[in-house]
């Protein structure tokens, strides 16, 4: 339909692009439709919404990590002037059922209510909600709520959560074990028999942090007494999931829960599990007969929301040939879920989407155990569960290279899945769709001037600095097959995936697009407009994409939302489907109006449907819209055209084989290869990233500028995560980094110079050749860990064992390398 250019390659000192063919809009840096309102402060974020007579919600939160609640007295608070009312756990328990649990026993036995009931299990857990006339009064009143506690010992170290001596968080589940499963593929014994060496790593630790979106959670909830419907204005990023959790608990149909959002101030997965607070707001709006507004403050968010999964890897054994050929590994993964299973134990299977990382080893065994601790509940965080696992596989590569005296780059190239192996079926049945990892690695090393790195090392040494270079190569698996949830719990009735879009031609020919997604800055209005404009042959400016999400638009499906790197596949797949339907309808209408010309003879261009050989004979979209919507007398009866097309995109998935834990778990596999150069001050452990390259391949890019923005953002999260960001608790379960005082996120001065590279390997499995992207698998964390380890070579040779490497830890690795790093053994097989 539209003109297509040839593929091309461009190389500049700080950017390399190897491009697939592009169309008038697809593949172009179209300016974002969202920007005009956002740069003028005209966005509508949840805390911007006001209603007459609304009350402000403030939560009374636990100061203890673990305690029995022996008494709650809200009378003083309720009698305070300006207070509208309160809600306690007792009331919640009488008005709702516990949230549905995804886990099999023992996790299945948890009784999770929207407010704490009888016991608190982490500092910051909500106990009572107070509603008042102003924000300040609500907080004042919350200080008058009297709660009596009987403090208990806290479990803060997952490694001891199952000790007999430790208290149990949830009596209902009997112990702190929440979920466990064993995954094994290939023939481990054969692999270890074939190996020349076995590399044994005693313990690796992936720390707790999250993406701390700048806007925290919030909601404004209205209850319509006449219809019994709630309207929930919220920045929850996965309304489909929230509804599934809330409806059964609140004993109402899902259509009673209307989710509305316009602009969301960042999500990164951290805004998926706000359903408990939303339930509280719903109950209060009904109880108090007025709209209620809840804004979570930064310290509340840090203490209680969406920490990323903390994970330990114990007794890892790697089977390897002397030349660095990797055969397989076994390990025990211990996952710290925090106090509740709010999205867990899905983290126990999500990692399996990238089981072998980017490597060809075929023999893998992983014993997964998830335990509860007295910390904030975990939930998805950019790179959810795959990031932890990919960090682990990347650590293995660099540790093996270090121990066998091999070049980490050579080891990667030797073991990378090759372009000729694509599409590649992994040992557990996932299918990597496309990609040339070795080429990406070449681009990355080129960008940071790898050949000259030894000179740079000497130059740094002359300045008293230790220079190190490291690679992080990761996958961004997108478009989940929700059937994988059955590997966690065979009873679950989820599989496949879907997303919806509608494209219609309005009465005056206006093209209106509605999405089922809840964008948080990914530019969906723009990229959807690009796809529609190419298909309808009109200007992207003539495509009106509605901002935000409303589950009452007819564009909402079970998996609607924005999460897990899938918009470019599911969201745009739906948009393309709906636009194709509309294009076809416009042509059928055109063929009638233009005197029975065959549809094949028609084309869409310049906002008209016209005869290819006689462009003068054209029917403007405005006329099409008017005819169908307002001037349709005399149209043929069999003309089945509404110009209002709805399409549900459904990716081609099978239900996985639960016995073998085998099947394709995600549709697309974007890839990243990052390279970092660090300089360490050996006297203090202080270090800086002095050079950095991020190479990304997410298939065909609809809007390269937006893709690059996602790559940059994910890189910044990786750098923040590895250098500074950590949710650290003391032994009593106090969070030591409850706000931006001590939880340091990267600032403008902290950012290294960044070079980017792009390779486009279109996905054979998606309608646009696109792949989901934006998470980037934490490549920055892996690259910096590797670079630090490289810098320490010959200076104690510590093995980086933790994903969190603040200055103090780097100094410890310099000061006492043997105890500060991982303990590694190499034995002849």
């Amino acid at each position, binding site marked *: 339909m539209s003109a297509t250019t040839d593929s091309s390659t461009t190389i500049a000192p700080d950017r390399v692009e190897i491009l697939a063919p592009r169309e008038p809009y697809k593949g172009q840096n179209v300016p974002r439709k969202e920007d005009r309102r956002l740069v003028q402060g005209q966005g509508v974020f949840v805390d911007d919404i006001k209603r007459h007579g609304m009350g402000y919600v403030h939560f009374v939160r636990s100061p203890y990590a673990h305690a029995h609640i022996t008494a709650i007295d809200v009378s003083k608070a309720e009698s305070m002037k300006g207070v509208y009312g309160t809600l306690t756990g007792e009331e919640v328990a009488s008005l709702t059922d516990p949230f549905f649990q995804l886990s099999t026993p023992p996790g299945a036995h948890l009784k999770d209510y929207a407010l704490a009931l009888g016991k608190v299990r982490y500092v910051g857990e909500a106990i009572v909600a107070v509603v008042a006339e102003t*924000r*300040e009064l609500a*907080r*004042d009143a919350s*200080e008058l709520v009297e709660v009596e506690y009987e403090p208990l010992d806290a479990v803060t170290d997952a490694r001891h959560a199952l000790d007999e001596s430790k208290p149990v968080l949830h009596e209902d589940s009997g112990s702190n074990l929440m979920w466990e499963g064993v995954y094994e593929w290939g023939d481990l014994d054969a692999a270890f028999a074939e190996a020349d060496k076995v590399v044994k790593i005693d313990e690796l630790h992936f720390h707790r942090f999250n993406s701390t979106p700048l806007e925290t959670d919030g909601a404004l909830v209205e209850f319509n007494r006449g219809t019994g419907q709630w309207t929930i204005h919220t920045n929850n990023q996965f309304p489909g999931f929230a509804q599934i959790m809330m409806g059964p608990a609140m004993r109402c149909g899902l259509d009673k829960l209307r989710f509305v959002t316009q602009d969301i101030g960042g999500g990164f997965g951290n805004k998926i599990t706000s359903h408990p607070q939303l339930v509280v707001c719903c109950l209060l709006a009904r109880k108090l007969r007025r709209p209620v507004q809840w804004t979570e*403050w930064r*310290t509340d968010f840090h203490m209680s929301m969406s920490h990323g999964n903390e994970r330990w890897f114990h007794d890892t054994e790697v089977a390897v040939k002397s030349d660095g050929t990797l055969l397989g590994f076994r390990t025990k993964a211990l996952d710290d879920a925090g106090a509740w299973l709010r999205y867990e134990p899905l983290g126990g299977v999500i990692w399996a989407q990238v089981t072998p990382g980017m490597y060809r080893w075929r023999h893998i065994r992983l014993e997964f155990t998830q335990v509860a601790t007295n910390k904030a509940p975990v939930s998805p965080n950019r790179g959810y569960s795959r990031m932890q696992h990919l960090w682990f596989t990347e650590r293995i590569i660099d540790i093996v290279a270090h121990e066998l005296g091999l070049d980490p780059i050579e080891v990667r190239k030797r073991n990378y899945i090759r372009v000729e192996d694509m599409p590649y079926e992994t040992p557990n049945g996932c299918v990597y769709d496309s990609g040339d990892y070795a080429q990406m690695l070449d681009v990355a090393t080129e960008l940071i001037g790898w050949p000259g790195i030894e000179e740079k090392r000497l130059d740094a040494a002359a300045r008293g600095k230790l220079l190190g270079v490291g690679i992080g190569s990761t996958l961004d698996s997108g478009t989940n097959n929700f059937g994988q949830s059955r590997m966690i719990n065979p009873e679950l009735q989820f599989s496949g995936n879907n997303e919806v879009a509608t494209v219609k031609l309005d009465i005056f020919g206006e093209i209106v697009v509605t999405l089922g997604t809840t964008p948080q800055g990914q530019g969906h209005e723009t990229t959807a407009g690009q796809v529609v404009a190419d298909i309808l042959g009109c200007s992207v400016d003539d495509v009106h994409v509605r901002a935000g999400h409303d589950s009452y638009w007819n564009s909402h499906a079970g998996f609607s939302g924005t999460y897990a790197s899938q918009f470019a596949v599911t969201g745009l797949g739906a948009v393309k489907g709906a636009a194709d339907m509309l294009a076809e309808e416009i042509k059928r209408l055109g063929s009638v109006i233009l005197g029975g010309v065959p549809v094949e003879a028609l084309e869409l261009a310049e906002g008209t449907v016209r005869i290819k050989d006689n462009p003068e004979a054209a029917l403007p979209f405005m006329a099409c819209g008017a005819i169908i919507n307002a001037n349709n007398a005399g149209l043929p009866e069999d003309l089945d055209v509404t110009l209002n097309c709805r399409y549900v995109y459904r990716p081609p998935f099978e239900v996985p084989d639960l016995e073998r834990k085998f099947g394709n778990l995600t549709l697309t596999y974007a890839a990243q290869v990052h390279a970092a150069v660090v300089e360490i001050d050996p*006297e*203090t*452990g*202080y270090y*800086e990233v002095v050079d950095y390259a991020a190479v990304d391949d997410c298939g065909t890019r609809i809007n390269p500028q937006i893709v690059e923005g996602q790559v940059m953002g994910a890189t910044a999260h990786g750098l923040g995560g590895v250098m*500074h960001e*950590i949710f*650290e608790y003391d032994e009593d379960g106090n969070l*030591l*980094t409850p706000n931006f*005082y*001590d939880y*340091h996120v*990267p*600032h403008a*001065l*902290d950012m290294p110079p960044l070079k980017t590279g792009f390779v486009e390997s279109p996905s054979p499995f998606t309608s646009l050749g696109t792949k989901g992207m934006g998470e980037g698998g934490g490549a920055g964390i892996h690259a910096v860990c590797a670079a630090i380890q490289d810098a320490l070579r010959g200076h104690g040779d510590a093995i980086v064992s933790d994903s969190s490497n*603040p*200055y*103090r830890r780097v*100094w*410890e690795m310099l*000061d006492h390398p043997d105890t500060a790093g991982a303990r590694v053994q190499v034995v002849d097989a």
Partner: protein
Amino acid sequence: MLLREVEYAKPSSVAQALAILSENDGARALAGGQTLINVMKARAASPDALVDLSGLEELRGIELGADGTLSIGPMTTYTELVGSAEAKARPILGEVCAQIADVQVRNRGTIGGNLCSNDPTNHLPPLMVSIGAQLTIAGRGGERVVSADEFFLGVYLTAVGPGELLTKITLPAGKRDGFAAVTLGVDGTCIASAAASVNGSLRIALGCVDATPVLLQPASADEGAVREAVRGAGLFPPADVHASSEYRMHLAEVLAVRAARQASERS
């Protein structure tokens, strides 16, 4: 966010401010508010009344005396100190102020507020101690002058008592100063810091290792002597998420050496 209820007054003279402060137990002076208001947001502390000093021109300004002495009004902002020609008489002052927090904070935060809050991570308390600043404190009974060595009593606690105000900071002449810190991110919060001054004898003040700056006066600025002095100071630094006590101890030693070197290399 969401402060507890508080009363507010904006006096138009120091005398008036002192009157309010001494008549209202629980009244606190509000300088730039870049620490105090955050503490109030956390409701970790809640003054009953705030006495806003921003209207008091008497407390602003930087004067350079004929003998090179700098007299600084406590309500002078970091930004003013960074930009001031007079303040260049003591170059380190502007250099260190430029490292504090960010533009917005430097635009409102004041030298007096920095000293009176004495958060252990603040840059200026150790600097004032190494420089040997004199601090003038006014109360209804009159004025007294306290040396920086005696000024800092504890976290958020100084010689400025209830009903009193810090009214002047006086810095002797001198240029040979140094400051070194390891911070949380570039120009971030101090994890450990050291200030040094070799105008006459060597004075080193360590930050972040105790509730108040720790003054050391080694015989010489050579590395051995400085390290010896730090080791001999009987420090037991606080541990937190950014540094163990042991690491802070180590940083104090390294940073003291660096600050002393910077100071002695200056002319």
